[in-house]
C-alpha cells in the first residue's frame, strides 16, 4: 500500500445544535424598535399566536461558528482535491464568481422592482442567453429552470406543447438504457409513458432498434451526448433525421456538455431541445447538492412555447414580455436562479471562446490519460474512444469478491472522493471516472497510483478493501438501518449520546 496524498489528523467531535443549547443563550442582535411595539395577541388574535418553538437552538455566536466550522471539517470537497464523480463534472468553483454574485445591486435586487431599476440584472441575463446560444448552436433559450431535472421537465413540456399544436401530443418518450434516472422520471411527470431503448454492443444507440421503436405514438427521444459511457453518439445526425421523418423530436440531456463546448454544437447535429447544467459545465458550486441552474435551449419551432416571461429588447432597454399566448406557462416563480446565472456568466467571461474550448480539450485529455494508465488494471467493457469521462467495470476484482463500491470506499483512504459507483446501469459494477479540466498531472498521477495500489491490495488483502474506509472519522455507515426505521429529526433524549 502506498498512500501518498494524505495522513490522518484529529478532527473535533461536535454534538447537534439542539444538544449544545442552553436556555437564554443568543447569537443575534436587533436594533431598538423605532416604532411602538405591538401586542401580537391583539394584532393577530390570540389563537393565531404560537407558544415558544420547542427545541429550537439557543447558542452563542462563538458556539454557532464553531459548530458549523467543526462540521465542515467532516466533509470532502473540491477544494481538498480531485472529485472524479462521473457525469457530475466536479470542476473548480472560481471564487470571483462568489464575489460578483454578492454585488450589492445584484444580491439585493427584488424581482418586482421596476424594470427601469433592473437593467443591470436584465443585461446579465441577456448576455448569458446569447453566450449559451452561441455555445449550443440553438435559436432561443429560457433561464428559468432551477436545475437539470427541472430543465428536462421544461423541455419535455415544450415538446408536448408543439405536438399538441400539431394535433397530437403523442404518448411515449424513448429513453436509452444508459440514461440518467431523471430522464424517465421527467417523462412520467410530463404525462408520457417511457419506452426503453437498448444500447448496442458498442454502447451506442442502436439505430435499427430506434427505427423500429419510432412510430406515431412517439413524441421524442431523450439522449445524453456524449452518453453516460463518455462516448460520443456518432450517428446522432441520422438519429435526429429518423425522428424528424416520423414527426418526433430529439431532446438532449446536456449533463455531459463539458465534452463538447467549443468542439461541437447540439444545434448543428439535429437536437431540437436541450438543457444545460450550469452547476456542471459552467462551474457554479454544487454546494452539497445545490443550487443549480438548468437553462433550456431550443430550435425555432419550439420558441413560441418557452416559459413566460421572455427577455425582449425595446429601444435601448430590456423588458420582460408576458404576452406569449402559446407559452407552457411558468415552471418556477420569478425568472430562475439568478445568482447562479451571474456565476455562470462570470465563468464564461473569464474563459472567453478560446478558453472554453481549451477547457474542453483538457477535460478530454485528462480522461484519456486516466484510461490509458488504468486499462491494464481494470476491465474496460466498452472500447470506443471516450471523451470527458471513462467507465471501467469491477469485473476482474469482483472475481475476488471485491466490488466497485468497495474500491470506491478504499479510494477515500487514499485521499480521494470516489468515482460514480454502479452507474450507468448497462455496465455491471461500473466505475465512472470524470476528472474534468481542473486537475493537473500531479493530482491525476496520485489518483492513478491509488487505483493501481488498490488493484494490488485486492489480490493480497481483499478483506481489508471490503471493510474500507479505515482512516475516516466515520467508518462504513449502516444505510439499511437508516431506511428500516427512519429517524429524520432530532428529539430530546433523557441521556444524549455524543458522536
Amino acid at each position, binding site marked *: 500500500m502506498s498512500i501518498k496524498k494524505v495522513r490522518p489528523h484529529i478532527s473535533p467531535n461536535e454534538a447537534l445544535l439542539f444538544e449544545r443549547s442552553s436556555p437564554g443563550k443568543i*447569537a443575534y442582535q436587533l436594533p431598538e424598535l423605532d416604532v411602538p411595539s405591538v401586542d401580537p395577541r391583539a394584532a393577530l388574535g390570540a389563537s393565531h399566536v404560537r407558544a415558544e418553538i420547542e427545541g429550537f437552538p439557543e447558542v452563542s455566536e462563538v458556539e454557532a461558528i464553531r459548530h458549523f466550522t467543526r462540521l465542515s471539517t467532516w466533509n470532502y470537497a473540491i477544494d481538498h482535491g480531485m472529485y472524479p464523480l462521473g457525469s457530475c463534472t466536479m470542476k473548480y468553483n472560481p471564487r470571483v464568481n462568489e464575489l460578483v454574485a454578492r454585488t450589492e445591486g445584484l444580491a439585493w435586487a427584488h424581482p418586482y422592482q421596476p424594470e427601469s431599476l433592473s437593467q443591470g440584472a436584465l443585461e446579465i441575463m441577456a448576455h448569458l442567453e446569447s453566450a449559451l446560444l452561441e455555445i449550443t448552436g440553438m435559436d432561443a433559450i429560457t433561464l428559468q429552470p432551477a436545475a437539470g431535472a427541472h430543465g428536462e421537465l421544461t423541455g419535455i413540456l415544450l415538446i408536448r406543447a408543439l405536438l399538441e399544436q400539431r394535433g397530437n401530443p403523442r404518448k411515449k418518450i424513448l429513453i436509452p438504457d444508459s440514461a440518467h434516472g431523471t430522464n424517465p422520471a421527467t417523462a412520467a411527470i410530463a404525462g408520457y409513458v417511457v419506452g426503453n431503448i437498448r444500447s448496442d454492443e458498442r454502447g451506442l444507440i442502436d439505430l435499427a432498434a430506434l427505427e423500429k421503436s419510432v412510430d406515431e405514438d412517439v413524441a421524442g427521444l431523450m439522449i445524453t451526448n456524449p452518453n453516460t459511457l463518455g462516448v460520443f453518439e456518432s450517428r446522432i445526425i441520422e438519429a435526429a433525421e429518423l425522428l424528424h421523418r416520423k414527426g418526433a423530436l430529439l431532446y438532449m440531456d446536456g449533463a455531459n456538455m463539458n465534452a463538447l463546448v467549443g468542439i461541437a454544437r447540439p444545434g448543428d447535429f439535429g437536437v431540437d431541445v436541450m438543457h444545460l447544467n450550469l452547476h456542471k459545465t459552467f462551474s457554479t458550486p454544487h454546494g452539497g447538492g445545490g443550487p443549480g441552474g438548468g437553462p433550456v435551449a431550443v430550435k425555432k419551432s419550439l420558441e413560441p412555447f418557452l416559459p413566460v416571461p421572455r427577455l425582449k429588447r425595446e429601444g435601448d432597454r430590456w423588458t420582460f414580455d408576458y404576452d406569449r399566448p402559446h407559452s407552457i406557462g411558468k415552471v418556477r416563480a420569478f425568472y430562475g436562479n439568478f445568482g447562479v446565472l451571474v456565476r455562470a456568466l462570470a465563468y464564461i467571461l473569464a474563459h472567453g471562446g478560446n478558453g472554453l474550448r481549451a477547457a474542453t480539450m483538457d477535460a478530454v485529455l485528462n480522461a484519456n490519460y486516466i484510461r490509458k494508465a488504468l486499462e491494464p488494471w481494470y476491465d474496460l467493457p466498452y472500447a470506443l474512444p471516450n471523451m470527458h469521462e471513462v467507465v471501467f467495470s469491477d469485473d476482474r476484482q469482483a472475481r475476488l469478491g471485491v466490488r466497485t463500491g468497495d474500491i470506491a470506499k478504499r479510494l477515500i483512504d487514499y485521499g480521494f472522493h470516489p468515482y460514480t459507483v454502479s452507474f450507468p446501469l448497462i455496465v455491471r459494477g461500473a466505475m465512472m471516472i470524470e476528472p474534468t479540466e481542473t486537475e493537473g498531472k500531479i493530482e491525476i498521477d496520485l489518483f492513478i497510483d491509488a487505483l493501481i495500489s488498490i488493484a494490488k491490495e485486492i489480490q493480497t488483502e481483499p478483506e481489508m478493501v471490503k471493510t474500507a474506509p479505515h482512516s475516516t472519522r466515520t467508518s462504513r455507515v449502516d444505510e439499511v438501518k437508516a431506511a428500516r426505521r427512519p429517524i429524520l429529526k432530532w428529539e430530546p433524549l433523557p441521556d444524549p449520546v455524543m458522536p
Partner: protein
Amino acid sequence: MLEACGVESPEGLFAHLPEAVRLKQPLKLPPGISEYEIVDYFRRCGDRNANGYASFLGAGVYAHYRPVLVDTVVSRGEFLTSYTPYQAEISQGTLTTIFEFQTMICQLTGMDAANASMYDGSTALAEAALMAARLTSKGGLLVARTVHPEYREVLETYARNQHMPITEFGYDEATGAADLDDLERKLNPLTAAVILQSPNFFGVVEDVNRAADLAHHRGALLAMGFTEAVSLGILEPPAKADIIAGELQSFAISPSYGGPYAGIIATRDRFLRQMPGRLVGETTDTHGRRAFCLTLATREQHIRREKATSNICTNQALIALMATVFMSVYGKQGLRELAEQNLAKAHYLAGKLRPRFSGPFFNEFVVSTNGRSPEEINRALLEKKIVGGLPLGRFYPELSGAMLLCATEMARREHMDALTSVF
C-alpha cells in the same frame, strides 16, 4: 500526457468525431478577461439596478437582514465545493447540517418530517399538490385565489399533464382571507387537496384549521403554503394541515432578483413515503457511533426512474444551509423578537394608511390608492428614493386601484413616514 494517449495534439483526441458534427470555426465569444475586469463588469451591472433605495416590496420576496455568520459559513469550501452527500463517510458535515435543518423545519411547522429542500416555494407547493394526489388517488385541486399568483401559475404547469383539474375559490372582500364558504361549496368527492397560503398573498393570516376540517370532511388533504418564513416565529402552525410547503427566502437568503431560494415540504409520518426530495436519516457506523446518511431513496428518481415520487435531483442544499445558520443565529428567542419587530413595523405603517382588508396581517397588507393609480404613487415615491408597493392589478384586475406593501425589520420609520406622505 499526450504521448501516453498516443496523440500528437489534443485535437487528436477528437479525431473520431464525424466531420459533420464538428464546429468549423471558433466560438463567437470575446477572449477571456481578468478577475478585475469581471468584478468591474458586474459592479457596473449592479450600479444600473436600484441602489440606495428604501423598498416596501414583499409579495413573496422579503428584505431581511442577513447575519454575517451566514456567508461566513457557506463560503467555507468544505460546504461550497462538495457534491450531494452520497458518500456518507466523507460527507458527515453536510449530512449533519441537513439533519439539523430537517429538525428545525419540523419544530417550526409542527410537522413530523421535512425534506432536505426543494427548488423554491412555488415548485414545493406544486410538488405538494402532486403528493396529495398520490396519497388520495384523486386529482382535483381546490386552490385559493389568495395563494401567490406566480405559485398558482407554476401549479397549473405541473398539474396540466397529470389529469389534475384546478378550481379556484375566492376571497372575502372585507377581510382579504380565503372565502371558506366558497371552498365548502366547491369541495367534492374528487378533490385531492385544498391549497391555501398563510399569511396569504395579501398578507392576511388564514384560518387553515377550519379549511382543513372542511377538506378532511370530504376526504381531501390540506396543503398549506407560505412565502414569509419569519411569520413562523410568531404564528401558530396549523395543527390540522397535512402538508406544509413553503419558501425560506426570508431566512438570510438574498433576494437576488428571484433566486436561488430554498423551498421545503413537511408532512405527517404517515405520508412520508409519498414525499418528494432527499431525506437524511440517523444511523450508526460500523463502530456503533452516530452517523447520518441519505435515506428512503426508493422514492427517488435514481432508483425508481419513471415510478419515482418526483424527478428532482439537485436541490438547494447550500441555500438550505444559509437558512440553517440563520435559524441557529436567531434561535428560539431571536426569531420571536424578529417576528415581533416585523409585526410592529408593518402595523405602524398600516396605522397611517388604512388597509384595504380587515383580516389580521403579519408584515404586509393591501392599501387602496384612493383615486390615483398605484403606478402614479410609485413614480412619486421613486423621486424620494423609495420603491413603493406592488400594484395588484396585474394579478387581480378587481384590485387595480390597490397595492401590496411590506415592512420588515429593515424598514426605517423616516422612510415609512416619507412613504405615507405621498398617499
